[in-house]
């Protein structure tokens, strides 16, 4: 390691031994609980309680998380009691009691849309990235939809999830079974700050088989794509559903907001779906550009968020340099640059609704359970953008 004042200072920072001991104890207790629960879902309330016992008291966020976890479990328990809805039973003569689906602890129903998720459109969490091209009028916008999804039933061996018009982003994939799982290795998953765009993300090329993907995508970062673990379908053992975590899970752990934009639920979503909007339509492109402006403006207005904004515009810096332009000297220049592309006629909620409708409304997830006797049943979940109020996007789901 090179020696300099930086590394010297880092050398002085060491985790206190008692803190390490507490961390080990908390982890082993959580692991022990998990082993005892072998074959059952992970009890988040137990994990949280383990965590709380060994920490300082009086931390408000701990209480909020525990309350959230307990509340989520209570709603989940209520949801599980709702009659299950199934389609496509191939039965094979066996009698099955069906299965129920919950998304973010909301029991899904057939023919009735339930709110499962809310997204703060201006939340500077880096969970969405957008690009707009003021010259050609095209625009690309991406968004993560992250939520817990649970399948409950009896005698179920495994559960397969298949998404249409979106891509699953799994953070941990050790529990994913090969059977029925399909990786999507060629979709370019551009995160905020990336600049090496090769092929615009689009629903058309999002989850096509490899041989139907545009070859130009190959010039992208294949290592990165592999690491991101994108799946169009995955199968997970029934008793290990909750061991999955999504790529965006920790980034977007607050998945519900109240009307004032305050996070009211904290959880670790097992499911993250990347969706995108790619358009050459002039009006829609303008909506995306305005959304970009709103997003960045909200970050700029937040002094502490400037680093996040700087992170985002790094891609723009690189593009500018590649085109032979001088590197912009400050954030304000970008604020001005984006203001030029902003239309004052932008109606935030109305136009966000148009954009999010485009991204969300055709996403469906087929959930297929395989029973211990080999029989399978499938239920399909359809997502929709229900409303946008004060910049809060509400995502609904129903069984179809």
């Amino acid at each position, binding site marked *: *390691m*090179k*020696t*300099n*004042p*930086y*590394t010297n*200072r*880092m050398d002085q*920072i*060491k*985790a*206190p031994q008692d*803190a*390490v001991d*507490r*961390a*080990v104890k*908390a*982890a*082993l207790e959580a*692991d022990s609980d*998990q*082993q005892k629960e072998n074959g059952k879902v992970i009890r988040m309330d137990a*994990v949280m309680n*383990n*965590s709380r016992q060994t920490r300082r008291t009086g*931390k*408000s*966020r701990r209480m*909020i998380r525990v309350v959230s976890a307990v509340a989520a479990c209570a709603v989940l328990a209520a949801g599980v009691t709702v009659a299950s809805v199934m389609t496509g039973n191939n039965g094979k003569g066996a009698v099955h009691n069906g299965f129920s689906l919950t998304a973010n602890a909301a029991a899904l129903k057939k023919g009735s849309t339930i709110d499962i998720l809310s997204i703060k459109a201006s939340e500077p*969490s*880096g969970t969405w990235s957008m690009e707009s091209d003021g010259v050609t009028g095209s625009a690309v916008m991406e968004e993560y939809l992250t939520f817990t999804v649970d399948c409950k039933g009896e005698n179920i061996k495994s559960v397969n999830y298949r998404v249409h018009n979106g891509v699953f982003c799994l953070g*941990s994939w*050790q529990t994913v079974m090969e059977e029925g799982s399909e990786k999507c290795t060629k979709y370019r998953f551009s*995160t905020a*700050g990336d*600049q*090496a765009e090769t092929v615009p993300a689009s629903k058309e090329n999002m989850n096509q088989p490899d041989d139907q993907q545009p070859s130009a995508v190959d010039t992208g*970062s294949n*290592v*990165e794509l592999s*690491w991101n673990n994108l799946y169009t379908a995955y199968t997970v053992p029934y008793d290990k559903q909750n*061991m*999955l*975590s999504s790529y965006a899970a*920790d*980034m977007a*752990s*607050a998945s519900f907001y109240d009307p004032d934009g*305050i996070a009211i639920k904290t959880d*670790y979503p097992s499911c993250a779906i990347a969706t995108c909007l790619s358009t050459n339509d002039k009006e829609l492109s303008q909506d995306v550009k305005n959304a970009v402006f709103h997003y960045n403006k909200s970050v700029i207005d937040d002094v*502490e968020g400037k*680093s*996040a904004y*700087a*992170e985002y515009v*790094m*891609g723009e810096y*690189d593009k500018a340099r590649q085109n032979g332009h001088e590197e912009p000297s400050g954030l304000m220049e970008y604020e001005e640059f984006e203001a030029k592309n902003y239309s004052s006629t932008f109606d935030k909620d109305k136009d966000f609704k148009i954009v999010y409708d485009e991204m969300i409304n055709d996403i469906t997830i087929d959930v297929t359970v395989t029973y211990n006797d080999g029989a399978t049943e499938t239920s399909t979940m359809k997502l929709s953008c229900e409303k946008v109020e004060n910049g809060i996007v509400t995502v609904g789901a129903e069984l179809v």
Partner: protein
Amino acid sequence: METNFVDEIPSAEERSALIERVIRQYADMIYRIACQHTDSESDAEDILQEVSIALVTKDAPLHDETHLRHWLVRVTVNKCHDLYRHNQRFRTESLDDHMDTPAGKPDEVMEEIRQLPELYRNIIYLYYYENFTIQDIAQALHKNANTISSGLQRARKQLKKILTEEGV
């Protein structure tokens, strides 16, 4: 060369030993990253604990040290994001609980570091202290390698004084 912690499914005792070994091995790394993001020792300790719990509840890639390091970096950074977002909304305590400074001197180095955008802080730490390659950092932070490379250059410029004092 990659080192595998385990080659096969361990017994409960072996798993516990493995978990403890991983936490103790990486505690300083997690804590340092957290300290650079949180300004507070107690918050950094909380993050260390939350990452440790996530290690067992989130199916961490214990079998592969390279991926495990990436996983730990990413989860630590994400926990810092969570804490930042929470503090924006619910902070009830002051920031008097700052990190200790050596010999009572103003902690100029940490102050300089905290002036950096978050991504730069992560890049500088992983590159200079943990000896991550550009590609490693890109994978750990889920960023494009070019982004990391250009970010490293800019971070170097901003930290020129503290990085060149003893010749980098």
